[in-house]
């Protein structure tokens, strides 16, 4: 067994101690959690923030004159600043708290319904998660605009020549994920954003899979919309964010009506609140927002450069070990990818693999990964997917590989 986590900038064992869940057992074996692309685990530092909120200052935010409400408001707005700083947004009010990536995308799609007509085109990439396909299909049904797909190459990367051609249609909007959840492909978003802007298209980047691994700078990217979820980056579920350029937030109509998002209400007319509250109707996930901020602080404490270096090392190690298994097929690009490995073992169903290795305490994902078009492209009914986080170790990868061999032996 090789547990020499050499060349790393941090001590993985110390980091593992931050995550209480990593010391539990599953089916009598130590948990090996390799389903990080679905959700990441939560460090004690973030759990403490959640406990502190409910133990000490749980109350409704904004407008409350009492101390608890003011404390909660301060922490919630501080979290917004943390997120703003992290993504380098120009203003804190360009960060809209949402329930997650899917909510963020729906908010933008809903807003664009009033801008599109049947003569308009929108582009979506073939590498998308269902959550970044369905809202646009619904938008196109509503507005009669046409939805075109940027195809993918056999390597699992986007076909950039086809993208250039599709841009000749003068689309109003382009939607692409920063990193594909099913394959781990890193898309060339800088180039895509620049080209979209040249033809006057707005562009939304789904960063759900990117943010656990890299730190995007929304101003440097000059992106119109960038969305992500807290639970992919060591935060809780049910909270996420939408970054949008201020000018877009003024243009977009509110998504939901309710409290918090209004300035004045009479039965004749309602004036909407200013940014960001215009898009934050109702009592938000206050604790979630604060914990999301704490999760970002936690990750920055480790450092994204160190995270990327270590995860890349894990990816290379795992890829080499997996390739040594007979009948192994790994899908997606060989380079330009994050620590996600989507694979099948010849003659064995992914579901069977997932079931057997769960018995060994190993958590991976099997199925279509909410990306049926990608599965159709590779003509497979599904894949097994292992995704690594900075708290995983090479020793865990060794156990995972042994588990796969055992499963393949049983199942063939």
């Amino acid at each position, binding site marked *: 067994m090789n547990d020499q986590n050499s060349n790393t900038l941090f001590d993985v064992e110390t980091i593992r101690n931050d995550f209480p869940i990593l010391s539990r057992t599953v089916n009598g074996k130590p948990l090996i959690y390799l389903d990080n692309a679905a959700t990441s685990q939560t460090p004690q530092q973030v759990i403490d923030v959640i406990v502190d909120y409910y133990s000490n200052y749980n109350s409704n935010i904004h407008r409350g004159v009492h101390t608890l409400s003011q404390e909660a408001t301060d922490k919630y707005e501080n979290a917004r600043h943390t997120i703003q700083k992290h993504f380098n947004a120009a203003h804190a009010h360009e960060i809209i708290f949402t329930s997650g990536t899917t909510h963020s995308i729906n908010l933008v799609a809903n807003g664009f319904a009033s801008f599109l007509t049947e003569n308009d085109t929108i582009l979506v990439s073939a590498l998308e998660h269902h959550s970044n396909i369905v809202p646009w299909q619904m938008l196109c049904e509503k507005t009669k605009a046409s939805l075109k797909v940027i195809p993918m190459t056999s390597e699992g990367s986007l076909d950039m020549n086809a993208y250039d051609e599709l841009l000749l249609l003068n689309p109003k909007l382009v939607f692409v994920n920063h990193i594909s959840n099913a394959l781990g492909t890193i898309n060339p978003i800088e180039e895509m954003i620049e080209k979209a802007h040249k033809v006057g298209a707005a562009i939304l980047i789904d960063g759900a899979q990117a943010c656990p691994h890299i730190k995007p700078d929304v101003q440097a990217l000059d992106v119109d919309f960038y969305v992500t979820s807290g639970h992919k980056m060591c935060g809780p579920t049910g909270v996420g964010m939408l970054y949008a350029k201020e000018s877009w937030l003024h243009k977009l109509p509110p998504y939901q009506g309710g409290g918090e998002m209004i300035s004045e209400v009479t039965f004749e007319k309602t004036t909407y609140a200013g940014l960001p509250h215009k898009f934050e109707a109702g009592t938000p996930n206050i604790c979630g927002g604060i914990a999301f901020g704490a999760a970002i602080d936690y990750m920055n404490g480790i450092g994204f450069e160190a995270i990327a270096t270590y995860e890349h090392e894990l990816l290379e190690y795992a890829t080499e070990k997996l390739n040594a298994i007979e009948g192994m097929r790994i899908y997606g690009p060989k380079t330009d990818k994050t620590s996600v490995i989507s694979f099948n073992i010849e003659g064995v169903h992914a579901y069977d693999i997932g079931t057997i290795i769960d018995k060994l305490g190993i958590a991976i994902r099997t199925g279509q990964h909410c990306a049926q078009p990608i599965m159709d492209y590779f003509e497979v009914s599904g894949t097994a997917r292992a995704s690594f986080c900075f708290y995983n170790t090479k020793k865990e990868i060794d156990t995972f590989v042994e588990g796969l061999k055992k499963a393949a032996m*049983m199942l063939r």
Partner: protein
Amino acid sequence: MNIKTIKDELIDEFSMFDDWMERYEYMIELGKSLPIIDSKFKTDDNIIKGCQSKVWLHADLENDKVVYSADSDAIITKGIVAILIRVFSNQNPDTILKTNTDFIDEIGLKEHLSPTRANGLVSMIKQIKMYALAYQTQIGL
């Protein structure tokens, strides 16, 4: 054979194994004895929804008894459906409808019984009973 006898037989067979691995290996073995669905019935219409793997199920009525056949592209799922068919096949519709699935728990495969599991065991049982209900109605007419 009486459905109770078949259930007891299965519980007996599975009780011989000490660990999960042996139980799964036996389940995979049972999958090999599955009465395979005729290819003409292996259509999308006969796929059971709610399974991560594909499961096709078909049933015929022979001498007032329901005879099931199935297939799956996953080997563990094939084992699960084989166990179900061993219990439910060749019984009259009334018996099938009245039979509960406690034996799944007793053979140590309880984890598959949760309706949220991706294997679709619950959907399979539902489909088996739907066929029984349909044939019961047909016989009664």
